[in-house]
């Protein structure tokens, strides 16, 4: 079962500029939650606060019942959090499979000496992890590319590699930053079905996404952010009908 995420009064400012003001919402365990808003609304900053890459100036962030406010990213992995990045951070010269294997790092047993000696248990663990990584690649539709260098794939597919890598962490809470940007039509369809299957397994997923068609197809609830503040919360359909949301997007009416 996935984790519950609760944010209360999260504030973030950089040098006096308020990036996030008093943001709070609750993501129910096992639901898919959308974070929507115009460019610069603070969506990615909010992700960075949740994942520990930014330290908010005040507020509370809880995963299930644990307060994770201000924890370093490395500690958050231990709370079952995994994320992808808006600009995929992959090892481009390594193969797709090697990139995905990284996500399973903490589950591999053995000291450096055991791996250098290639003891049987490390060989076995590596073999099992590879099998799991291939299955995960299958899930995101990239098994065919397992042995290609990551830089041979398109930018859109890099997001899918990141998704696979994040899934290898066995997260209870998955943060996806613009996962569908740059994907082809077929790849978007595949992505939507992947998220739906994650939801059916009970994983909690939070998505930042501009593509409203994706948002309305996969999310249970959404929060609309504008200028670092929560504008409204509800279902995707409610959001799209809300006049405040339409106004917030006026500069770019076709985005909503």
């Amino acid at each position: 079962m996935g984790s519950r995420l609760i944010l209360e009064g999260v504030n973030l400012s950089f040098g006096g500029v308020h990036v996030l003001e008093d943001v709070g919402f609750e993501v129910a365990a096992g639901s898919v939650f959308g974070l929507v808003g115009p460019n610069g609304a603070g969506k990615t900053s909010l992700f960075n606060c949740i994942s520990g890459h930014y330290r908010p100036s005040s507020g509370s962030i809880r995963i299930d019942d644990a307060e994770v406010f201000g924890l370093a990213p490395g500690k958050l992995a231990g709370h079952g959090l995994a994320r992808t990045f808006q600009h995929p951070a992959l090892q481009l010269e390594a193969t797709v499979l090697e990139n995905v294997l990284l996500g399973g790092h903490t589950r591999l047993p053995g000291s450096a000496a055991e791996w250098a000696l290639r003891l049987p248990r490390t060989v076995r663990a590596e073999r099992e992890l590879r099998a799991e990584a291939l299955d995960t690649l299958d899930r995101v539709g990239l098994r065919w590319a397992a042995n290609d260098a990551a830089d041979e794939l398109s930018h859109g597919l890099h997001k899918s590699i990141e998704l696979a890598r994040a899934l290898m962490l066995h997260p209870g809470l998955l943060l996806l930053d613009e996962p569908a940007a740059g994907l082809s039509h077929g790849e978007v369809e595949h992505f939507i079905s992947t998220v739906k299957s994650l939801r059916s397994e009970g994983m909690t997923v939070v998505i930042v996404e501009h593509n409203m068609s994706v948002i309305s197809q996969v999310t249970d609830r959404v929060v609309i952010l504008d200028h670092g503040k929560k504008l409204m919360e509800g279902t995707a359909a409610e959001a799209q009908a809300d006049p405040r949301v339409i106004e917030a997007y006026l500069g770019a009416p076709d985005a909503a």
Partner: protein
Amino acid sequence: MNGLRNLVDRPWARWALGAVIAIILLVLPLSATEFTNQTITRIAVFAVAVLGLNIVMGYTGQVSLGHIFFVGVGAYCAIIPIRALWGGSIAEGAIVIGFALAIIIPGIVGLIVALAAVRLRGLALAMITIALPIIGVPIAKRFSDITGGNEGVSVRRLDYVASDGQTYKGNPFSAPAWSGLADDQWQYYLVMIIAAALFGLAFFLVRGKYGRAFAIVKANESVAASMGISPYRYKVLAFTIASMYGGAAGFLYIVALQYTSSETLSFGHSIELVIATIVGGAGSIVGSILGGAVYVLVPQITNAISPESTTVVQGIVILLVLFLLPGGLASLPRVLARRFRRARGGHNVDSSNSTEPAIENTENTKH
């Protein structure tokens, strides 16, 4: 050329190439001159040192400018106990003790240095490690009663008591009678076997769990942390392993030369080792071997032509490599193959996954 590349890409061809080289290295010393054997032995010694530096610098991306310090400390840790204990009741056991200390003590020193230096991000490790040889030399000179200071310490003619009760002069690393080998051949095989084992261990280490962790720490610490990989821990680990390899190279140095002095860990040699690592090929096992060759051969060649030019040549070589061949000599075949392919018009890029249609990315979902 393309045919050659395809050949090199096939696993069996690589194994065959490796086997041929191994056989040559095995047979060669039996017929080569003493000078050739000693040169190859020294290349193997410094290939291990470069391999250690590669683990921290090439694979983990942490610049260490003081790696020779650990080679020098390892050499002292090997030669001092051997000199004190060899012969008598423990005989060859002294060499084993020397080998163990040459790995353990540099490892502990490296761990302590890394625990402090790695706390600072970025280039602090480079800025601190550059001090190691500069501090190490005066420390070695200060303790000259055990290190021999400038004159150094040698085990080429050690007193020992033989079974007949007489005292003889001997060298712990001269060939035993049963081997039927000359001294240079014996030292060659001893160094080669240990170096090969150390290369094998490193080969496995830089793959799998630890190799991937080192690589992501080098590429992006933020992502590493997100994967539950602590950049601090892995940098400390890489530096410690590198120090142990440096120490092991120090032991091999004693096997090859049976002598060391404060000159071994000098600042100039430390810089040369960094240069050799990059010229050979950072983050590459083959590059480490080539780096060992660069370290030994470049000064040997320039000394033969014009001794004053050694340093200038090293400076020019490293800058040229950085400009023209950033992957070092180890990347040369790959770079040449790519050039050649491009010259032929760029077709036949990679046929391995030609069954898959090219992914077209024309539709932009972000309106």
